[in-house]
């Protein structure tokens, strides 16, 4: 049973990696398990300067999901390169940086700065963070802006660029095509759906930022649908799929929909062992459903007509 998958810049021993923002920079979860077990690691978003993020509360629980509005808190790209990435370099696991910004210039600057690090294998271009007032989300919902930022980051970066798409759009295929046209090496989808929960006692949104990003199993059907649609339209583009993965069965569902690899986000909070447990169960699940490798399952859920 081969779990290996090869994507631009990423020779993965298995297709499972923690999702950006749900694993910090790896240190905390390295107390729970050996990070060598992971297919790859996508770290928390990096911006040009350190960001404080949004006021608290920043999270809320929903039915089969959660809302978050962290607001891209991070120590800034320079500190990430200096203080965070070296720790991860000791593992035999590719690291993907997630980059964010308020302006095209900031994105480009972060991408350029990351070229200095030798601890990376790829970049995930987060054009879809719904929790920052300026920038962020417009890039993810306007195909022209998405094209521009993708093109410029691609020019600036020495690494393969995976563009992370927002699900908060009328037409996901249009967005996917736009960034692929602009040179994206792959796609990462989906980021969170914008949502809100209201505190009945306080008569106000629970999240201080009012809206937050909905993640977890609640959004899995939307993620599967979008990946399926994009895979129908773009048969060759590498896709890292995510949104509500909790089990190895979920991973297989994403592979069938057309993902080449997957990321696990919210599940880490419920179970810090989520990633290694899913990886351990994957071979059994693949063979239960008649597959001999991960590669074999990719896109096999598509029917024609």
């Amino acid at each position: 049973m081969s779990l290996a998958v090869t994507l631009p810049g990423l020779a993965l021993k298995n297709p499972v990696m923690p999702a950006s923002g749900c694993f910090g920079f790896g240190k905390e979860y390295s107390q729970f398990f050996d990070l060598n077990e992971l297919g790859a690691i996508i770290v928390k978003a990096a911006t040009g300067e350190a960001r404080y993020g949004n006021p608290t509360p920043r999270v809320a629980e929903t039915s089969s999901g959660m809302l978050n509005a962290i607001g891209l808190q991070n120590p800034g790209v320079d500190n990430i390169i200096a203080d965070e990435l070296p720790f991860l370099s000791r593992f035999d696991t590719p690291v993907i940086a997630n980059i964010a910004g308020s302006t095209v210039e900031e994105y480009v600057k972060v991408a350029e700065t990351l070229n200095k690090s030798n601890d990376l294998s790829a970049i995930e271009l987060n054009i879809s963070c719904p929790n920052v007032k300026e920038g962020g989300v417009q890039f993810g919902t306007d195909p022209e802006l998405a094209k521009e930022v993708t093109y410029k980051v691609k020019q600036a970066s020495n690494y393969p660029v995976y563009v992370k798409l927002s699900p908060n759009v009328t037409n996901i295929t249009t967005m996917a095509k736009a960034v692929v046209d602009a040179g994206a090496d792959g796609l990462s989808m989906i980021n969170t759906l914008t949502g809100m929960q209201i505190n009945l006692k306080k008569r106000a949104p629970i999240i201080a930022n009012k809206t937050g990003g909905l993640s977890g199993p609640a959004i899995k059907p939307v993620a599967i649908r979008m990946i399926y649609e994009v895979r129908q339209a773009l048969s060759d583009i590498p896709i890292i799929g995510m949104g509500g993965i909790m089990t190895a069965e979920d991973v297989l569902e994403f592979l069938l929909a057309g993902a080449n690899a997957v990321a696990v986000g919210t599940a880490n909070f419920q179970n810090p062992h989520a990633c290694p447990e899913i990886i351990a169960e994957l071979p059994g699940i693949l063979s239960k459903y008649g597959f001999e490798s991960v590669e074999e399952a990719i896109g096999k859920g598509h029917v024609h007509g």
Partner: protein
Amino acid sequence: MITKQSLEINSHIQIAEDTFEVVLQSSLSKELKPGQFVHIQLPGHMLRRPVSIANVNPEAETFTMIFKIFGEGTRNLSKYQAGEFLDVILPCGTHYPIEDLSLEHALLVGGGIGVPPLYYLGTKLKEKGVKVTSVLGFQSASHVFYEEKFQQLGETFIATNDGTYGQKGFVTDIISKLDKPIDYYFSCGPTPMLQAVTSQLADQKGYISLEERMGCGVGTCYACVVPLKADPSKNKKICKDGPVFPANEVNLA
């Protein structure tokens, strides 16, 4: 080291209105320090629930927690019984650093579900020979718990919001009448109480323990931050850098 364990419930009893005391069996019990918390998974809930450690029995390898029904998660937790198992991450967070402090007389100030961690702290202080005075606030008589246990640690004053037990009013009303010389205060409770206590005791040294809605509980998600007083553009994680902070370090406003 922080770990996820499946812990058997040794006992689960109601000790006051909506308030339950749970004793859990864990090989890690003896490592748990006052101020730390555990992060509990409940079926049907996406996020874990943080609950403080209220006491430890190192010989029996058990620890105690006390919680109040607040919403669906704690309601769910209230229905467990002895013999059942809970999925728990532990130990989480920092502790009251009493081993490093020069202490003769400590003031404990607790409100509601902020009372439990102070009990474990009090037992440790007493072990060290520190004199302990406790001021505890509850909603009303039916919510009061552990009064006798605190009395065994030292002088204990109770305030209730509605005056149905002890003194009517807030813990600060009692503190203002205390004129005992204390070295440090240790406080845990709702943020408005902590604000009142920290400003009332502004020239005393003290430690406070904070609450915030949490995601991971281990320091990866940045959900649970609190701004620093020195530089409110910086913040610390309550789950990892806290929940215990020096009283003057964080900005509660």
